[in-house]
């Protein structure tokens, strides 16, 4: 009712909300994070362009730790089970999250994915996000760390073009370095400089899933992540 004269006319009011639009996703992510923490599972959100080498890095890593550590994986995929199939062949307990046309995973999708995955007892759970350098960066999934795969064939300025993705990365894996001899225009120091302009704590490692070069450093990083209290990496905020 109109507050001035009580005439019965409706009134336009402004209601302050000040709430994150993704608050629902953040709650679901916190729930996932609690599950991971309770079960001592280190969850990693692995992001990158389509074809950056996310699955290849995981395959090689899983084969390197076989018999010592058990990996689990949820593979976000628009239409196929190919990545999960490849990961299972490498000894990973893996399931696809088929997203249809969705360009990213959100925390609720990961939660539902966990229902279908026998993940109890895994040491690391890799959430292989949909290949995309934009949308996945926006959604917290409950991970302990964000890792972004960037292949040398993608050029040197991807971090500057997609700052939000790289700003949220705890680690950037520069992949396919076995191809560097064929890419004379690509210099790792230029990529590293671009990262320092978008990441407050720039950290990168050069790896080749094909030759195994650099993979030892990545394994050490994973072990250090596991040793940290509550598996939490300090984020940029």
């Amino acid at each position, binding site marked *: 009712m109109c507050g001035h004269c009580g005439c019965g006319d409706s009134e336009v*009011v*402004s*209601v302050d909300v000040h709430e*994150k*639009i993704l608050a629902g996703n953040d709650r679901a992510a916190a729930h996932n994070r609690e599950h991971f923490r309770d079960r001592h599972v280190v969850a990693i959100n692995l992001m990158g362009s389509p074809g950056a080498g996310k699955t290849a890095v995981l395959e090689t890593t899983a084969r390197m730790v076989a018999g010592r550590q058990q990996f689990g994986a949820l593979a976000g995929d628009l239409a196929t089970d190919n990545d999960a199939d490849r990961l299972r062949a490498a000894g990973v307990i893996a399931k696809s999250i088929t997203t249809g046309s*969705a360009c990213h995973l959100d925390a609720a999708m990961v939660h539902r994915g966990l229902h279908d995955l026998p993940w109890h007892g895994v040491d690391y759970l890799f959430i292989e996000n949909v290949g995309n350098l934009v949308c996945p960066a*926006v959604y917290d999934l409950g991970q302990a760390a964000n890792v972004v795969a960037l292949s040398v064939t993608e050029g040197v300025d991807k971090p500057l073009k997609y700052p939000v993705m790289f700003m949220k990365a705890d680690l950037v894996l520069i992949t396919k370095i076995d191809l560097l001899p064929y890419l004379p225009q690509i210099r790792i120091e230029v990529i590293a400089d671009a990262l*320092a302009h978008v*990441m407050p704590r720039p950290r990168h490692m050069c790896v080749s899933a094909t030759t195994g070069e650099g993979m030892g450093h990545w394994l050490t990083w994973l072990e250090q992540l596991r040793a940290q209290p509550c598996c939490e990496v300090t984020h*940029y905020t």
Partner: protein
Amino acid sequence: MHEYSIVEMLLARVAAEAHARGATAVHRPTVRIGELSGVEIDLLAAAFATFRDRTICAHADLDVLPVAAAWACPQCGGLIERGAMLRCQRCGVPARLAQGDEILLDRIEMEVP
């Protein structure tokens, strides 16, 4: 195109707030979108125009307040120059994002009986 899923969440949140207050219509939700939020304002507006039909926001305009990114030193508070490395030159520590990652529903203008 995650802007579409963000608009779905926005519409659900606005509807819940409007319902709780017995509103008959929503005139204008106001959102704050940071430069480094990963949300494109044009796409967000297009998604809102598409999805508002048959909701309490059917005749509402979306008001978007863009927020520029600003990085600052967590020790001395000095601002980092745009385009510079994200490290305080004076203190040598990593910069902190002071603003620019907002995806916020700020307020809702609605009609109440």
